[in-house]
């Protein structure tokens, strides 16, 4: 073996060892700073982890773009909704007076809020862009209570890492990390374009996550659970979406 090929071999060996150590170090740091998504296992794990980690670092304090009222999409956009059943119809006939949003899990004071109680909080209105993973989008004005205010009221424990939210539609539930949960534009929304939030758009209550795609904005929310571990929910992938083959993180 010549000197040249020996040197090449040593260089390649060092580079490989450095690469393995680098990946190991990066993985350790990523775990420590909460940059690993719950659906990180499997074939698509590396890409998903890179996307989530990169976007978490780059968008830590970023605000979704807000638009002037003239940009609001006309005619108002309504997605198709599956039948919601008799119980929903009864609640709707009662003007949703009996609709509750309960908050439990890693909180000091578990609570349950009526629509009126949520509306008594200082509201936030924002005109933002909502895009579906299919490719279409619309701009609308959302009114609601910042989720951070609701969480403040129940006293989130310092170990909390995620907020899981459940829909009246049993198959629908999702979760966001605390970065999105405490983000000022993340709303428990009850109003759209100046009026009540229509049922077709998720009324009476929808979680509005302004920096993620449409499917993270779960309609008809009834319950929030604060947790430090998503493994306890469903198949442990963070939301119903990965169970149906879709990414948990939808910032892209």
């Amino acid at each position: 073996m010549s000197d040249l090929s020996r040197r090449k071999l040593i260089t390649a060996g060092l580079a490989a060892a450095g690469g393995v150590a680098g990946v190991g170090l990066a993985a350790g740091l990523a775990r420590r700073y909460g940059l690993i998504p719950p659906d990180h296992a499997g074939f698509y794990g590396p890409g998903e982890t890179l996307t989530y980690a990169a976007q978490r670092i780059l968008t830590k304090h970023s605000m979704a773009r807000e638009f002037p009222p003239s940009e609001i999409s006309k005619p108002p956009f309504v997605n198709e909704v599956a039948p919601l059943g008799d119980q929903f119809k009864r609640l709707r006939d009662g003007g949703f007076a009996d609709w509750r949003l309960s908050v439990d899990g890693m909180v000091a004071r578990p609570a349950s809020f009526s629509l009126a109680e949520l509306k008594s909080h200082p509201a936030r209105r924002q005109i933002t862009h909502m895009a579906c993973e299919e490719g279409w989008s619309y701009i609308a004005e959302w009114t609601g209570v910042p989720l951070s205010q609701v969480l403040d009221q129940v006293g989130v424990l310092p170990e909390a890492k995620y907020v899981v939210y459940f829909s009246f539609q049993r198959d629908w539930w999702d979760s966001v990390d605390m970065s999105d949960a405490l983000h000022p534009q993340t709303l428990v929304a009850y109003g759209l374009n100046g009026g009540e939030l229509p049922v077709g758009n998720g009324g009476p209550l929808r979680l509005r996550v302004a920096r993620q795609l449409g499917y993270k904005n779960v309609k008809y929310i009834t319950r929030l659970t604060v947790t430090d571990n998503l493994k306890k929910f469903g198949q442990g992938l963070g939301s119903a979406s990965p169970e149906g083959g879709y990414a948990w993180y939808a910032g892209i």
Partner: protein
Amino acid sequence: MSDSAWVATPAIAIPARTVTPRHSALVRVTHWITTLCFLALLVTGVEIVISHPRFYWGEVGNVNTPTLFKFPIPASRATVPTGYGYVLPDQNGWSRYLHFQAAWLAVLTGLLYVISSLFSGHLRKDLLPGGADLSWRAWSREIADHLRLKRPSEEEAWSYNLLQRVTYLFVIFVLFPLVIWTGLAMSPAVASAFPTVVTAFGGQQSARTIHFFVSVFLFLFLLAHIVMICLAGFWSRMRAMITGRVAIEKERA
């Protein structure tokens, strides 16, 4: 056994052994990783378009707004009025996962290629048309030869011709960056951190439409690339890109 032979006659043997490959190992490896990624991005991109085969201009676009153009095909979602009485199976979940995974791999591979090409001289020597004849006559001869699908000469197996250099530079430094940029412009999180990524194109739907057209150009490049390889000799060019060697044994023997 061969080692002892080399030692016996080093002056003759070494140059024969260290024949410079047509394509360096780095070019070959990055080429095939990019090929794999591009095919994955192409198939999954088509799948994602099928879920909403309508294109728009500006900031927003949905079934209530006019389209720039649309494809007369059935969709994989019931939300799109296509005129067909059926809905194709939904493939968006894995398509999106694979699209972004392949995009990451392609971007990292591309960075490795561009950075190492800067240092190795591959960019300057093999890609920039620097020393080449850039006169109108040279251009028109080159284009005419290509249009006539003329088989390249033997020397061309050892370097890129003028049209090839310009095309490769355009793909590497215009089309790829543009397709990455417009792809990122569709991400609501990226748009929140860097709004100009979107506003530079006049809106998120414009970025989506440009992303589509750049992909079409990349696909056309792929087709032209394959046609040229077949004209130049499919197996010899494949061999050059896989093993690095050019098949001209006849002359050497």
